[in-house]
């Protein structure tokens, strides 16, 4: 047993670092630091995706035949850890990490040939049409309907909490193609061009003042049947495959460590009156650091299992729970570190377009919106209450 990486792995680590040094511009870095929502805006995020793609690293999780880099689990770990440490943009995961694996796993040859290269290059920008008003964590109750009409489906209904729908040119969606006894059986997985007539998008501002999510309305939207992935009525299976993917986010500790480092730097700076001098702040910082240590160790245990070909299994729900809680603890520490400077509200977005900031150190600006938006960590992607239901059932067998 040991924690050290092999010489080859350390060489790879150096390669990643070198890549980052060359490709991560100061503007991208600043923009990322000043983005209080989950994902970078496309101008930032896609610039990074293009650089990755050029290097052949555009889709670390994909099989080699579709353009994946054929990394070992350890290499993926190292890549993610170095990216987090350096503060690279948070590329919207809907393409590479969400719809990509589904198309690879269940799409037709034509779909694979058409969509996958466009995801890799960043030419297509995807959003996810799962949630609906009235069906949040209870996704199977979704009501958006796709009715067969010749070679098309005609879609009516609405999706909500759609991240970056206002930027995306494509959506993958779960829609109801059949009324069945078991709600799950009537759902299909469809790829939709966002420029199709009948689609409108309404912005929803988050509690932190960011425009990241939307409501999308479908009014007699005509989508070719050829855009369905896999079989009709099997969409739930494909969708759940994705949710599993989303929950087992795998390597979150490095990002959390980076987020804590940011708060820690603030606490040590004059911008907060050296908040670290407050023993409550100092001790909470250690508590969170230790929680991240524990999380990282669990992730490494999973990684080590993966390396020897074992399935980490239901542990992903455990990880999602802890990750969201630790993230919130970091943002909570943030607002306590900046003290009364929390009163300042900057309505302008994106923050990184601000040139001159009035009377407040720039690095304090994202702290309050991050805390506010961060309340969503325990809600989106399956609330913590639902996650604990799952842990009890799947992990503990209750």
């Amino acid at each position: 047993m040991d924690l050290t990486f092999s010489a080859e792995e350390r060489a790879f680590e150096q390669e990643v670092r070198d890549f980052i040094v060359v490709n991560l511009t100061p503007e991208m870095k600043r923009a990322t630091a000043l983005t209080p929502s989950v994902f970078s805006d496309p101008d930032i995020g896609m610039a990074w995706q293009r650089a990755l793609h050029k290097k052949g690293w555009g889709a670390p999780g994909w099989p080699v035949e579709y353009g994946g880099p054929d990394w070992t689990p350890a290499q993926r770990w190292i890549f993610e850890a170095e990216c987090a440490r350096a503060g690279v943009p948070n590329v919207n995961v809907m393409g590479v990490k969400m719809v990509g694996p589904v198309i690879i796993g269940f799409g037709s040859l034509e779909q694979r040939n058409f969509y996958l290269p466009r995801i890799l290059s960043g030419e297509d920008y995807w959003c996810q049409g799962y949630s609906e008003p009235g069906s949040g964590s209870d996704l199977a109750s979704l009501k958006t309907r796709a009715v067969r009409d010749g070679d098309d489906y005609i879609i009516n209904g609405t999706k909500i909490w759609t991240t970056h729908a206002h930027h995306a040119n494509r959506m993958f969606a779960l829609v109801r193609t059949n009324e069945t006894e078991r709600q799950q059986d009537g759902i299909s997985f469809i790829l939709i061009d966002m420029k199709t007539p009948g689609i409108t998008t309404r912005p929803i501002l988050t509690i932190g003042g960011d425009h990241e999510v939307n409501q999308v309305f479908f009014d007699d939207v005509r989508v070719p049947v050829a855009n369905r992935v896999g079989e009709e009525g099997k969409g739930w299976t494909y969708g759940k495959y994705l949710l599993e993917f989303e929950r087992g986010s795998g390597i979150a500790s490095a990002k959390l460590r980076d987020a804590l480092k940011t708060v820690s730097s603030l606490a040590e700076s004059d911008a907060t009156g050296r908040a670290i001098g407050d023993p409550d702040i100092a001790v909470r910082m250690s508590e969170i650091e230790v929680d991240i240590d524990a999380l990282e160790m669990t992730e490494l245990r999973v990684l080590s299992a993966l390396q020897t070909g074992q399935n980490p299994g239901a542990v992903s729900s455990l990880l999602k729970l802890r990750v969201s809680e630790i993230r919130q603890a970091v943002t909570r520490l943030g607002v306590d570190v900046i003290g009364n400077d929390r009163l300042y509200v900057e309505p302008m977005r994106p923050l990184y377009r601000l040139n001159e900031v009035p009377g407040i150190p720039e690095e304090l600006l994202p702290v309050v919106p991050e805390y506010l938006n961060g309340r969503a960590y325990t809600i989106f992607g399956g609330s913590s209450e639902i996650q604990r239901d799952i842990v009890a059932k799947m992990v503990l067998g209750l």
Partner: protein
Amino acid sequence: MDLTLSDEQRLLRESADRFVNETYTADHRRMIANDPLGFSMDIWKQFADLGWLALPIAEAHGGLGGGAIEIGILMEAFGRGLVTEPYLSTVVIGASLISACGTETQKQALLPKIADGSLILTFAHSERQARYDLAKVATTAKRTPDGWRIDGQKIAVLDGNAAGQIIVSAHIDGGKIGLFMVPQGAAGLTSRDFPRLGGGRACHLELRDVQLPADALLGDGSDALPALEVVVDRAMAALGAEAVGIMQTLLDQTLEYTKIRKQFGRPLSANQVIRHRLADMAMQCDEARSMALRAALMADAEPVARSRAASGAKAKIGKCARFVAEQSVQLHGAMGVTEELDIGSYFKRLLAFETLFGGSAHHYRRHAALGGRGVHV
């Protein structure tokens, strides 16, 4: 021992509740959110007419001689309505500082104007380097042939742009703290006004070579720190009452929502975990209510008892408020983390005022230190 409201207090509560219910609608909040002043001068005049601005001012200076209990009754209603009028700055803090420190001449000149609504005040004390140490003031006041010269920077000044005069704390010669009446628009005074988290406005101030007449100093030049502690203890009791109004609103709205919102074919409130969460929220609301009342009842007690009650209230209410606020958002699910519901505004107001005069950790330490537990504040 009697904790029931007197007839006058009951009337005050009824009129405050009625006013808030009728005035502070969601429409009003939307309107005021874009207002450069952050509140309505029209409503301020009505506050004056209702006698609320005169409430804690001594009768000799045109006031009603009310106490911390009456202030608490108003503030709780203000919390329910998310009132943005500068009541805390002007009346709870401003009038009290003048009453505590001012000369008779200053009181006669200023207090009646507060009571009749013609003078809005604010208190510029917080500095970034000081965090929550009331005694740590880097702003300086130097004597000049004509009076005073003030230099320094202040952050998080509530309602600063609306104030006719700003009460600025500064170190005077000999290490004492003095309070200075700085008129809005004074030469050398730069204000950066911004919308305040949770509604209303605030500003950061820079004072560079601000020249003031000799009588700009409140009082006779003795150290203002003891008076500052009295007034801040009272302000914390008032903030506690406001928080209770907000927390109760959050609890009520969350109860309502979890009863109506259905998932997996049944209301959210059918889930035992959510029922227990709501029970805990109700319990913490009740504890916060008790602590706010206690701080008000102890506002005139001897200094250590008064300050421990105020710190205890600030600490405990802050802790309970964070729990109630975060859980309200959590139980509203995705809707809770948008600006589509009122819940977010209440959440933000609690967050905004949580560290005013120090957060929970600071005040638990102060409580311990004042109790002789040998902790550093």
